[in-house]
């Protein structure tokens, strides 16, 4: 029977449509997988169910009865428990307090019942006995735990809700194999006891291992619901990316290799730092070097470190012929290095400020300007914005009035007014729509043709395969494989990413 049903749920944040039309039906006793690329609206959908986000429209039915969810408390009361992708933990509280945070056991009406708290925590900690790792205990402060351990606490917290419907939004991203296996045992047990489970993961093997059915979301819209036993990975991926994504590398226009006669734009030798170790590579002028591998294997950390925003403990970086060890992003920018982050909310967008102020900071810095003359700058800014077909009403409109893709174009445009020598792209297309992606990659290839050295890290294989001349596959903070020429296939990339697992 249907545990949860969503009909035409939508949500917009200002001009950005996070969820266009979300439909979903979850049965009791099934693990229902949600799939979709980053920014397709999965998390928004989950948060709407959990009451953390107010939907603009649509119906929610629990046990075939229409319900109104007024907030997280109301969702809990109606039997919904959730694992938040960004975690919802209190870092300065203990593991046991976090597990029961929403419903702390009380005695005499006002006091925390420590005995009950410990008992309850012990029950869920026991589920992960022997896999939780060193230093994990009921009275440890969550802030002192490793990322995987924190993720386990969030799992325990969701389980402790004992809710008939459980949502897990990427619960395994930091977990190791043993922890995932244990977690799946628990999920199977819950399933057998009739719970409905929504599960989000980007790992195909996990989805195959635990899922019963899959609902695919693309650009904020539910595309299809399939029975996992009757489908294969290729079909799912095709639905996710909308047909165009499964392009093999051989059909793309990315040349197999760049001869490198113009010399190296960026050279990295034996670089180690927090999150990566002993990485060496060279990017020739005009080359697009791809970084591949599973998310969080040191790619971002390395790019940030080169840009002067991370720690470097050993090794050296050269731009052109000269030593380049940027002490800060300011230093890096002055010497012709550019960095575009996919996390534009955190690293890029100066929210609430006009587009012009978002597009000019690099120009100001490189020319050591003191006076801002927006109208004079227009001639420099407009071509940069137009080279990517950025849609905007005027330069003086706030950047938040733009869609995610156009915001990212503005952020990239700030690097185009004065050409850098090296462009570092850190998953630049996260959460932007397909046409914006296409514009972006056209531009990146043009820039490469003009002689820039470009490093492209992307969490989407198709982007790497379609644009990178070479691909370095990262695993556990090091480069484990280099794919060149005809080796650049989806299969090889996939295999290299997982091979040490």
């Amino acid at each position, binding site marked *: 029977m249907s545990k949860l049903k969503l009909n035409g749920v939508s949500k917009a*944040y200002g001009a950005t449509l996070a969820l266009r039309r979300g439909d979903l039906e979850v049965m009791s006793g099934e693990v229902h997988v949600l799939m979709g690329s980053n920014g397709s609206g999965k998390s928004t959908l989950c948060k709407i169910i959990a*009451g*953390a*986000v*107010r939907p603009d429209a649509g119906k929610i039915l629990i046990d075939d009865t229409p319900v109104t969810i007024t*907030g997280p408390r109301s969702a809990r009361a109606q039997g919904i428990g959730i694992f938040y992708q960004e975690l919802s933990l209190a870092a300065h509280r203990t593991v046991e307090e976090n597990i029961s945070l929403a419903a702390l056991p009380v005695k005499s009406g006002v006091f925390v019942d420590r005995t009950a708290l410990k008992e309850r925590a012990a029950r869920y900690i026991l589920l992960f006995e022997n896999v939780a790792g060193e230093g994990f205990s009921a009275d440890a402060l969550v802030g002192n735990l490793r990322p995987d351990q924190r993720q386990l606490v969030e799992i325990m917290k969701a389980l402790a809700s004992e809710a008939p419907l459980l949502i897990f939004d990427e619960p395994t991203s930091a977990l190791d194999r043993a922890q995932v296996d244990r977690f799946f045992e628990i999920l199977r047990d819950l399933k057998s006891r009739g719970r409905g489970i929504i599960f989000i993961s980007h790992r195909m093997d996990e989805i195959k291992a635990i899922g019963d059915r899959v609902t695919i979301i693309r650009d904020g819209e539910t595309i299809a619901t399939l029975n996992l036993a009757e489908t294969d990975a290729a079909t799912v991926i095709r639905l996710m990316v909308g047909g165009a994504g499964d392009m093999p590398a051989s059909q793309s226009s990315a040349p197999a290799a760049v001869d490198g006669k113009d010399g190296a734009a960026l050279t990295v030798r034996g670089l180690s730092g927090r999150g990566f170790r002993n990485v060496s590579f060279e990017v020739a002028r005009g080359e697009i070097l791809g970084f591949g591998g599973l998310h969080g294997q040191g790619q971002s950390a390395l790019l940030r470190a080169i*840009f002067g*925003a991370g720690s470097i403990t050993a090794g050296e970086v050269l731009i052109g012929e000269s030593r380049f060890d940027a002490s*800060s*992003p*300011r230093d*890096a*920018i*002055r010497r012709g290095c550019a*960095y575009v*982050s996919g996390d534009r909310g*955190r*690293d*890029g*967008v*100066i*929210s*609430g*400020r006009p587009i012009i*102020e978002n597009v*000019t*900071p*690099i120009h*100001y*810095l490189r020319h050591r*300007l*003191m*006076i*801002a*003359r927006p109208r004079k700058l227009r001639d420099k800014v407009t071509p940069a914005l137009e080279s990517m077909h950025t849609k905007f009403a005027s330069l003086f409109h706030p950047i938040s009035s733009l869609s995610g893709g156009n915001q990212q174009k503005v952020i990239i445009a*700030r690097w185009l007014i004065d050409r850098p020598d090296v462009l570092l792209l850190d998953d630049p297309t996260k959460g932007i729509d397909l046409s914006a992606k296409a514009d972006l990659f056209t531009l990146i290839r043009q820039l490469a043709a003009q002689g820039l050295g470009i490093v492209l890290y992307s969490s989407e294989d198709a982007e790497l395969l379609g644009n990178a001349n070479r691909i370095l596959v990262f695993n556990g903070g090091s480069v484990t494989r280099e794919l060149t020429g005809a080796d650049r296939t989806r299969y090889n990339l996939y295999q290299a990413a997982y091979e040490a697992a």
Partner: protein
Amino acid sequence: MSQVVSRFLSFIRQPIIAALVLIVLLLYLGQMLSPGFASGGQILRLLIVASLLGIIAAGQNVVILGGREGIDLSVGGVVSLSAIIAGNVMNGADSGILPAIAACLAAGGFFGLLNGLGVTLLRIPPLVMTLGMLGVLQGLLVVIRMGIPSGQAAPALSRFVTQPLAFGIPGIIWLWIAIGVLMALMLNRTVFGHRIYAIGSNEHAAYMAGVPVRLIRIALFMLSGMFAAIAGLCLLGYSGTSFANVGEQYMLPSIIAVVFGGTSLAGGKGGYTGTMAGAVLLVILQSILTTINIDESGRQMVFGATLLLLMMFYGRGRAMRA
């Protein structure tokens, strides 16, 4: 029709418009309650007081705009200190005005620098750092006051603050207008101004775009100290002689003026024009309360309640459920 209404409502909800509308309403109300309240001379007197508050609020404004819970509680102490320093340096002589200005700006800049260094290098929350600095300044005031006489304002300074300078308007109001224009230019037309907004609205993004975050934040605290110093100097001219802790009463009102002007305490949003309106609004409100025939207690209660009401009109935080 309803669209017209809603457009009107959203227009009037703009803090600066709201403040201006309220100012006009309050002036009208004051005139009703006590004829002559909105006369030219009275309005000028109000504007003199407002400019004192407004100049302090300029510094408060930039510190708040710079974000990371930026706030400067030490402005009151700097105002008092500057009034004493100025009184002693000029000691009733016009020739001492320029040295006094230099001394006050140096003192204000110095304490601002200390605040800025504590906030950036040691990462002490601004509230704590400037609160501690306020204590130091108050102690310093006692030391200075015990050692030396309180000093006298130079006649030219008093004239500048209280007597008409041009077009019947006192110099301090011209100064305030000039500061207003300069602030608007700085915030909107200089790279420095854009960087203030950048660190206030997204410090990390600003850092990644090469903005020297720490230097700018230190500069903001120094600016705040220097504006407070100018206000202290003017305050001396206003009252002729300095007395203990004259500046303290301006500390929290300077924050309120900024908030009423539409600048968010979270940083990165707002400007100084609104703050000027906010300062005028506050001063008129206080002045009306003194003309009404109620005693001090009633005045305070009405003042507190009105402040709350006005805050409800704008400056509310975001709901947790998006």
